[in-house]
């Protein structure tokens, strides 16, 4: 087992390397294809000489492959370059903003687990009842609602009308409530629907029938047998959701002025700030890979039949 584990780790690190390499190439190409950063960086009334000076200053006068090679060499040494706009190391800026984003993402994940799973179990144990129908509608709304609109509505209701919660910033834990809800509404909807449908399916399995047949109380059938098997797809999706919560909080962070990576990403894209965007995407990419790794480990706990050495 120990040996399998270390083999597994080596493969994971290799996997990580290839994923990050692919992500870096993709980001590099996409941003370059979408336009010339110098023209956004330089004032419109800059002289052509000034424009060329700025281009050379940031090494953007070199062929794309040379630029990428330089970037890669520096990146391997932990240097993701200086932000064009802020003249600061891009990686440092991202790492500085990362804790706020992780905090919000974990809070949203907690909300998702605490609300999404029980909701799904409740609906899944009484399929096609009126209660199931209500949950279905609610979760469908949760999945469909644009987070931008929801965020604004929550601010208008809780911060403006009732004045019970702050609308922006991250000064106290109370500041986390509205953005946390906004961010998690989608995952709550998704997870509860997933749990519901998986549970309904599981309850029809042979081993559930066997458990019932041998006279196990329904509670034990549900919690000891069915739910455990329901958790495998759920954990996968929760892992993906956490990645999504980390990387996809751009909208929510800008609505609630939450000073995190999403805000930084928005600044980077708007200013065509290549090093900054690259740093954000690479860090988020890294987080995704690590989360997947964690999900794999959790699998082995949930289902002893799953082995990492395959």
């Amino acid at each position: 087992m120990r040996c399998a584990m270390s083999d597994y780790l080596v493969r994971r690190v290799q996997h990580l390397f290839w994923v990050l390499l692919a992500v870096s190439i993709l980001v590099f190409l996409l941003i370059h294809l979408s336009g010339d950063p110098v023209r956004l960086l330089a004032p419109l009334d800059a002289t052509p000489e000034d424009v060329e000076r700025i281009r050379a200053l940031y090494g953007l006068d070199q062929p794309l492959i040379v630029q990428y090679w330089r970037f890669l060499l520096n990146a391997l040494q932990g240097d993701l370059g200086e932000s064009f706009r802020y003249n600061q190391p891009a990686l440092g800026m991202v790492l500085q903003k990362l804790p706020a984003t992780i905090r919000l993402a974990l809070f949203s994940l907690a909300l998702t687990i605490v609300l999404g799973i029980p909701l799904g179990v409740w609906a899944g144990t009484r399929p096609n009842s009126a209660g199931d129908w209500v949950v279905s509608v609610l979760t469908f709304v949760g999945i469909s609602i644009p987070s931008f609109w929801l965020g604004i509505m929550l601010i208008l209701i809780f911060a403006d009308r009732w004045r019970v919660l702050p609308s922006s910033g991250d000064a106290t834990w109370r500041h986390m409530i509205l953005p946390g809800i906004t961010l998690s509404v989608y995952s709550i909807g998704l997870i509860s629907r997933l749990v519901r449908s998986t549970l309904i399916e599981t309850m029809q399995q042979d081993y559930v029938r066997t458990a019932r047949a041998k006279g196990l109380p329904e509670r034990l059938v549900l919690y000891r047998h069915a739910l455990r098997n329901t958790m495998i797809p759920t954990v996968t999706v929760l892992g993906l959701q956490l990645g999504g919560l980390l990387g996809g909080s751009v909208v929510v962070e800008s609505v609630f002025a939450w000073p995190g990576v999403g805000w930084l990403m928005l600044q980077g894209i708007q200013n065509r700030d290549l090093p900054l965007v690259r740093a954000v995407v690479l860090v988020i990419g890294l987080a995704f890979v690590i989360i997947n790794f964690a999900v794999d480990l959790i699998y082995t706990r949930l289902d002893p039949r799953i082995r990492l050495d395959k």
Partner: protein
Amino acid sequence: MEQEHHTTTPARVNRRTFLQLSSLIGVGAASGLLWGCAPAVAPGGAPAVTVTESAAPSGPVGELILVQGVDAESLDPYVTTSGASRGMMWAMYDKLVTRAPNMEIIPWLALSWTVIDDSTWELKLRDEVYFHNGEKFSAAHVRDSIARFKDPEVKNIYAGQLAKVLEVEVVDDLTARIKTDGPFALLIEVLAVYCEMLPQAITSGEVDPAVQPIGSGPYKFVEWTPGDRMVMEAIDRPHFSGQPKLQRLIWRPIAEATTRVVELKTGGAHIITNVDPVQAAEVEADPQTRLATFRNLSSQIVVLNQLKVEPFQDVRVRQALNYATDVDTLIATIMQGNAFRLAGPFGPGIPGYDPELQPYPYDPEKAKQLLAEAGYADGFDLVLTSPNGRYLNDRLVSEAIAGMWSEIGVRTTVQVMDWSPFVEGVLGKTHDAFFFLQIGVPLDASVRINFHGGVQGAAWQGYSNDEASEIIDKAVTVLDEAERNALYKRLGQIVYEECPWVFLWNAAGLVGVREEVKDWEPHQDGVLHLLGVRLEV
């Protein structure tokens, strides 16, 4: 799947947040009117603002929270570029000259400025000014700050503004002579926007201003968390401007306009910029808040590309489109009154502004007649390109204009573009016509890139008039303010007659202010100047 979710409303987000970004184009340098370069300006001779030694009756009190759409990009005043960051920098740093709310240039660290000869300006400096680290301000600081402003290592994208400055001679502690490459009439204009004075601790390289800002302004730096808040506090001694009147300043960026308004109403902010006009009434109706409106300097226009659209080479066609555009209706309906109509290219606050010019009246019959005279009685097809969310209601206004033009036979369709491809189309001169914002001060840069047929600059789209080009070249060398303004006025008249643009409006700047904020008024440059502002507690 989750991606789908989070990108459900990108257009909406972009519109809101883009609006808050200070424009890289056109309005970047926005400010001003008077050219304080009359042979000598009397110290303290400014009518609109008192720059006196008298401090407030009591010491500084209260904590003022200012919320803008974007944050500073850096603590280094020569690196950060957004309009939002100027107000932050100017609370900590002093410039040689500054502007009153009406854009008039007033003495600041420089008490007077005199033309010695065609290529020398002499500045008399204010005595007894100290930086936050105790250094006493002197002529050497002028020399070293300008040197750092132009230093390529600093990566200052506005370094070119002082390209004509050759050297600064320190005559004595309080006298500096600025040597220029030929007559540099815009020097004082430039110094009213750029080149904050730095202590030698910074210019010598000992202290990095991006980490530890040290100025001579009424507030000193405490801390900055990018994207969250910048905190400043009152200096211990009185500043020559009578400030500081506030104990602490907190600057916060909030991209979303609705969130800013809620913060204002709930007391989480005292002053907010860029109130969405949709919420203007709400801010006015709340007894605890009020709305301060100012007329922006920059001109909202439609640029007609004469290089790409052949009919635009005929001045009658360009005039026809001005007659065919019902600007008053656009202002009353789509803009909900939040715009001030322009007659020609320059609005009030710009040196070439001519109050005599009358806007082209809405007259579709006259427009059709002009088109027919030009040989386009059957009209032609046109694509009007609009950014999406860069300017207030840009797409809606473009669509309305397209409808108006189609009525006189210029069959116009609207193409909406994201900002970066839009800019590339402007620079590459590939749009037929586009909705745009131009004009700022110093005026030279914007007229040069738009109207000079020889320079053919970044925003130029084929317009050419020899007299206009000559005026643009000549004005920068004319040191006499009245004479130079007369030249720009003539330029405005030529452009008005020849219509390389369809002239629309100066947008209204809307600032939300809480009632406890006293003695504050908005400046036309849109920067949050804090002179005089206090909190009633």
